[in-house]
C-alpha cells in the first residue's frame, strides 16, 4: 500500500491528506525509510532526519484524544468549532476538527476518523481503539 515519494513538494496539492487502505479511507502520512519515524502530513523529506527517502503510509484510523477546545473566536474559521489533538499509533499527533458535542468528550478517550464524501476529515468519539 506504500509508494516511494518523489520530490514534488513544489506542488503542495499533489498529495491529498486522504488515501485508501484495505478498502477504507485513512489519513496519509509519511514513513521515513532511514529513521523509521512516521509523520503527518506526507512530505518528500523526513522532518526528523531530512532523509529524502519517505514512503506514503496509511495512518491509524483510531487514536486517543490528548486535548480539545471549543474555539469561540477565530480569524480564519466560522465559530464556534471544536478542535483537538488525537494521538495515533507510531507517535503521530494530528490536530483535527472534532465531530461531537463538547459534553461527549473527555481527555484520553478513544476517537475514530471520519471522512466525508468531499474528502473533508474529522474525528469523532468511539468505543475502543479496535
Amino acid at each position: 500500500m506504500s509508494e516511494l515519494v518523489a520530490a514534488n513538494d513544489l506542488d503542495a496539492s499533489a498529495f491529498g491528506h486522504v488515501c485508501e487502505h484495505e478498502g477504507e479511507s485513512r489519513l496519509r502520512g509519511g514513513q521515513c525509510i532511514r529513521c523509521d519515524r512516521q509523520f503527518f502530513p506526507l512530505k518528500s523529506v523526513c522532518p526528523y532526519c531530512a532523509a529524502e527517502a519517505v514512503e506514503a503510509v496509511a495512518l491509524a484510523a483510531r487514536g486517543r484524544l490528548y486535548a480539545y477546545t471549543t474555539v469561540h473566536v477565530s480569524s480564519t474559521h466560522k465559530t464556534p468549532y471544536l478542535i483537538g489533538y488525537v494521538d495515533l499509533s507510531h507517535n503521530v499527533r494530528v490536530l483535527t476538527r472534532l465531530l461531537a458535542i463538547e459534553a461527549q468528550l473527555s481527555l484520553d478517550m478513544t476517537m475514530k476518523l471520519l471522512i466525508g464524501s468531499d474528502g473533508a476529515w474529522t474525528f469523532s468519539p468511539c468505543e475502543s481503539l479496535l
Partner: protein
Amino acid sequence: MTQAYVIGASMIRMGKYPQASYAGLAVPPVLQALLRCGLSMQDINAVVCGHAFGGMLTGQRIIKDIGLGGVPVINVDNACSGGATALHLAYRSICSGEYEAVLVIGVDKLTQFGTGTLPLVMEDIEVQNGMVMPALYAMRAQRYLHERNATREDLASVSVKARRHGARNPYAQMRSEVTLDTVLNSRPIADPLTLLQCCPTGDGAAALVVVSQAVQQRLRLPSIRIRASVLHSGKYDGGFRDMLKPQISVLTAREAYEEAEVGANDLDLIELHDAFSVAELIYYEALGLCAEGDGVALIHSGATTYGGRWVVNPSGGLLAKGHPVGASGVAQVVEAYWQLTHQAGQRQVEGARLALTHVTGGGIAGFDHGACAVHIFEGIR
C-alpha cells in the same frame, strides 16, 4: 570580548492607535531613549528593528523620520520574539566589537487586523484545520487542569495578579484591577480560557540604546548590563509532546542561567511571556521558579508578587500591559531597565538588582513554539 549595556530605554503606553503608522508608534520612544542617554544620531552605528506585521522596511520607515539614514538597518521577524531577537543581534554585534552603539526597536500594530485572533500563516496544516493561538493555550490549560489538579479559579488568579500590577503601570494598556469572578465570567474565547485570560489586541513600540563597555564607562549613566542573551528556535516533533513542558523555554532559560552564572533564586524580578493565563503557571516550572506541579501553590503563596521572593511581571505582563507581538520583547527590557535603575515609580521592586526577561512565539505545527529568547540583566547605578 567586551560587554554590552542598555543605557537608554523608552516605550509608549500600549493601546489601540488605529490611526498611527509604524513610524508614528516608534519615533517617540526612539527619541526618548536617545535623549535619556545623551547620544545623538551620529553616535548610532546600526539599527535592529523587531516586528511581526510591519511589512517591508519597517525599521527604515521609522528612521527616515528622524534623520538617521545611512547606517545598516536590520529588520527582524521572529513572531512574539522579534523584539528580543533584535536585542540579541545588537548584543552579539557589540560583544564582538563590531559596533559601539546600536539602536534596538520593537514595534507592532495589531489593530490593523481589527479585533480577533492573531493572523497565522495559512500554509500551516494546523492553521488550515482551525488552530488559533488561544486554542493552543486552551489545550495546554485543559491538560494543566487535568494533570496538575488545578481549577479554573487558579488559572484566573494569574489574570487578577497581572491586572493588579498593570493598574500601577502608566504604560499598560489595561489599567484597572479585576476580580476573579469578572475574569471567569468574561466571554469564552477558547475553553477554558475566557477573554480576560487572553492578552488584549493592541499597538505599541519600545526602544533601547545598547552600547559597549567603553561607551558605558565614558557616559557613566544609570544602565543595565546584559549578563545573558540566549535565542533558540523550535525543533520539530510531530509526536506525543507533553504540552506542560515547553522544551524551548526550558532549554533557553537553562542556558541563560549558565551564561549569567546566576540561578532563579538570585533574581529579583521576571518579565515572562504570559500571553494567556495558563502560560505563567507553566513558565514558573520552565524557568525554575518551582518544581513540577507546584505552580499553583507558588502563585497563591504570594511568592511572585510584591513582597514575595520575586515579582513576576511587575509591568502587568502581556495580559495587562498588552502584547503588540514584535514590541513585547523590547518592552520587557524597558521594564527591566526602569526597575534595575530604580526609575519604576509606584511599581518599583524594592532593591531590584537582577532581572530576567522571557518571550516565546509563534504557532507552527510540530513546534511547541517557533522562537524563544531569554535575557538576564544586572543594574549598574
